[in-house]
């Protein structure tokens, strides 16, 4: 099977439309950035870069957001944000809540906000009236000690070891199979080694709290600023490194064009981030760098072909050669981009909440990165060549010499 064979499109003739499209995409995204930062006095940064407190809680049922809000207000945290997010396995139910706090001012200890949030949650939803400890927050060693003390299986030899293993299986069933929240002790009856005696012993000793803390992050202001600076410079140096390598392998204008195109991709992706209300975290930086690598890859494939064709077609203009190179590699471009797009789309749909922002950046990035190779990078080389007529010869000469 073959697709896109023998295509003959005048890509460079459409360059002005590409530029217009890019400007439009940039304008839409960055208007949204402007709105977020200047109009709403908000920020695009996630907790890693902004600092603050974030507590990610899973509830047994639909989270009582109003109750949480009331509790937080009474605890003196009126500026907290509460956001419901979809269950990663069951999109229709929204059992997870993210509670956020701005950076604490003054001399409070770093985790003061987190402690207050936990206190509110425990006071409002933690234990039932029986006062028994919560099975959903018990740790493996404590559970093992309790099981050994009760000895509901009447084990003689190695009781400690065997209860220790049973406790590990119980906590891991709770954490991996039930995402940290067990709603009824019967859910545990299929765990290896669990008998009705164990279940009734657990039910006698423990209550089932309505929530579990899945993740808590606190980033101090100094760290936020540090991470910001570091991510910025890491990206800058990475781009610089690529520029130097491409300039060395091709011509400096090719390196510059590739870097400008990649920069364009990053700007557009950031704009879309703002437009779809995603936050920039450390993982998103990894995604942006992935798309930088990907877009660069795409651009180099085309430039490589241009370099090769410059040797073969000495009579033709650079514009024709670039058009031809893009057409020749079009099949590969569409296949690779299509498959990569499919991969990141699967990741976006199936990858869960933690990878959501990352895969969103990739979904946007793959499309923009592919487009910028022929829409931005190639026209820059052609334009530069037009304004510096005759330079093509040196490009040809040098690359030919190097390949030979």
């Amino acid at each position: 099977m073959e697709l896109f064979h023998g295509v003959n499109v005048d890509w460079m003739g459409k360059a002005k439309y590409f530029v217009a499209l890019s400007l439009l995409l940039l304008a839409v995204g960055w208007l949204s950035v402007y709105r977020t930062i200047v109009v709403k006095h908000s920020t695009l940064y996630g907790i890693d870069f902004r600092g603050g407190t974030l507590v990610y809680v899973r509830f047994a049922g639909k989270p009582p957001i109003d109750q949480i809000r009331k509790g937080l207000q009474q605890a003196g945290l009126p500026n907290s944000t509460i956001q419901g997010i979809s269950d990663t396995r069951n999109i229709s139910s929204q059992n997870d809540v993210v509670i956020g706090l701005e950076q604490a001012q003054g001399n409070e200890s770093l985790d003061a906000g987190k402690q207050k949030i936990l206190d509110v949650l425990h006071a409002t939803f933690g234990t039932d009236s029986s006062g028994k400890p919560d099975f959903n927050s018990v740790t493996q060693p404590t559970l093992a000690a309790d099981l050994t003390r009760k000895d509901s299986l009447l084990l003689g030899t190695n009781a400690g070891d065997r209860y220790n293993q049973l406790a590990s299986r119980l906590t891991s069933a709770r954490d991996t199979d039930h995402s940290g929240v067990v709603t009824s002790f019967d859910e545990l009856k299929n765990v290896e080694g669990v008998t009705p005696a164990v279940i009734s012993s657990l039910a006698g000793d423990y209550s089932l709290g309505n929530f579990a803390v899945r993740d808590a992050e606190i980033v101090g202001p100094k760290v936020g600023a540090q991470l910001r600076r570091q991510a910025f410079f890491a990206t800058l140096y990475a781009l610089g490194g690529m520029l130097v390598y491409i300039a060395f392998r091709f011509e400096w204008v090719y390196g510059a064009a590739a870097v400008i195109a990649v920069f364009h991709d990053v700007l557009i992706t950031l704009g879309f981030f703002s437009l779809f209300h995603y936050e920039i975290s450390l993982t998103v930086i990894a995604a942006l760098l992935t798309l930088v690598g990907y877009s660069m890859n795409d651009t180099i494939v085309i430039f490589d072909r241009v370099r090769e064709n410059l040797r073969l077609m000495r009579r033709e203009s650079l514009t024709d050669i670039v058009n031809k190179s893009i057409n020749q590699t079009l099949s590969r471009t569409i296949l690779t981009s299509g498959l990569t797009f499919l991969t990141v789309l699967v990741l976006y749909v199936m990858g869960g909440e933690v990878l959501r922002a990352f895969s969103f950046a990739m979904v946007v990035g793959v499309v923009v990165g592919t487009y910028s190779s022929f829409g931005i990078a190639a026209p820059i080389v052609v334009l530069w060549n037009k304004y510096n007529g005759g330079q093509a010869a040196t490009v040809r000469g040098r690359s030919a010499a190097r390949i030979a």
Partner: protein
Amino acid sequence: MNSPLKWKFAFILAVLLVCIFGVIGVPTLPTSWAQVKDNLAKRIQLGLDLKGGSHLVLQVQLEEAIGQRCDEAVDDLTKQLHAKNIGAGEIRRVDDTHIMVRDVDSNASGGFGDLVSNQFTEWAMAPAAGEANGYLLTMKPSVVADLRQAAMNQTLETITRRINALGLTEPTIAFTGRSDDEILVQLPGVGDPTGAKSVIQAGGQLQLVRVADGPYPSEAEALAQHGGVLPAGTTIVPGKNESAVAGQPAGQVFYILDRAPIVTGQDLRSADANSSTEYPGQYEVDFKLSTAAAARFGPFTEAQAAIGGRMAVVLDRQVYEAATIQSRIEDSGRITGGFSQESAQNLALVLRAGALPASIKYLEERTVGPSLGADSIREGVRASVGSMIVVMIFLVFYYRLSGVNAVVALVLNLVILVAFLAYAGAVLTLPGIAGVILTIGMGVDSNVLVFERIREELRSGKVPAPAVDTGFDRAFLTIIDTHVTTVVSAIFLFLFGTGPVRGFAVTLVIGLIANVFTSIYVSRAIFDFHLSRMDRQAQLSI
């Protein structure tokens, strides 16, 4: 099959076997599926974001260690000047690294200069601006740097000892590398870091000091009793003695203590938590002194007992207990103060592990619960496997037999990547999984580049063998260029990035190197094998 091709396949097979062995064959050769899973779990180290646990970044308040050195120098200088009969109006610490000495006797300025240059070699002396006989001493930058380094090393060692004593599994304690005063502590499996944090943060500076006077209800009162000037060599320290002054809440009394302790935490031989015989239900920490310290302590307590002197147990600038010395004490003592069993055990642990040279502040605290990590692994792996399958089906559908070739190369690519992670003990994080996905993408691209090139050559009328030859040769340059560019950027990310970004860079670099091997060397070998068995003019399935 010709001979060079045989060697190629032998090499590929060897690589494959070494990789598979590295992933699932260690530590014990598996005989069941459960053992395979067990080995895999042991060999692939997961990052905190996948395994769950606590991640803490703390900052050492290095100025404190430097300021302390400055205070010591001020004390020392005062003594030395006194001993040498050199008069000075004022000797004052300006900030952490500067000492101002004013109104030095004009006829003794030579002696003063000699003293500083001979005995205070850590300091640089210069005449103070706007002062007739004043001098400004500045701590030399090399000394400051050494002090900082020493304090960081000591803090790291102390925290390591304390955490090891807590008995947590596989903790990481290291410098962060992003700033010279930060330490990273990672505690896998610790869902609530509160206990560990307080053990790490405890100062642990124990002193046994002679009580000069007190207690007083306030600092002002203590000063007023001495006409506004403290006796030489003494200082005011708050205490939390419950009943010393009636009507005062605990912790609200003040003692006047000697500056110089008789015994410090470094003199301890052991420290243990025991239940209190005096206060049922409470715990205390009993300690024993080293022989050298006991030799000082015995005569001191004997002399004090004769005159009814008192001694205070001071922990981190806080008086825990002040009592009249009844008789000679040789080498043991205790700290009481209403401890619970846990807090007494933690204090004993901290005393055994040694004191921190400076206090610390937490900058970052992340706790990933085990359930979130488990979800992330499942979803990450499911998404990777899902997309791999989709991509493979497409490759076989689009390139037919050659597509099978690509699938073999992709799978081998992944196996090598995972094996490298196992052999190198690298840590797999969530961004690392992203790196794996990008590797798959680049692997697909390499194969597509080669296959499209071969198709082009076939279209131009070449027979399969030379078409494959040219296809690989032409695509080779492109593949090298794209891979080297990405590796260059990944190296910069590794050098200048932090945690998650680094994990991404590592998997990416390994994945790309494996990718060049599989999509060029392995894929080529399979093509050659296929070509050697088919007719020169026959159609290539691509």
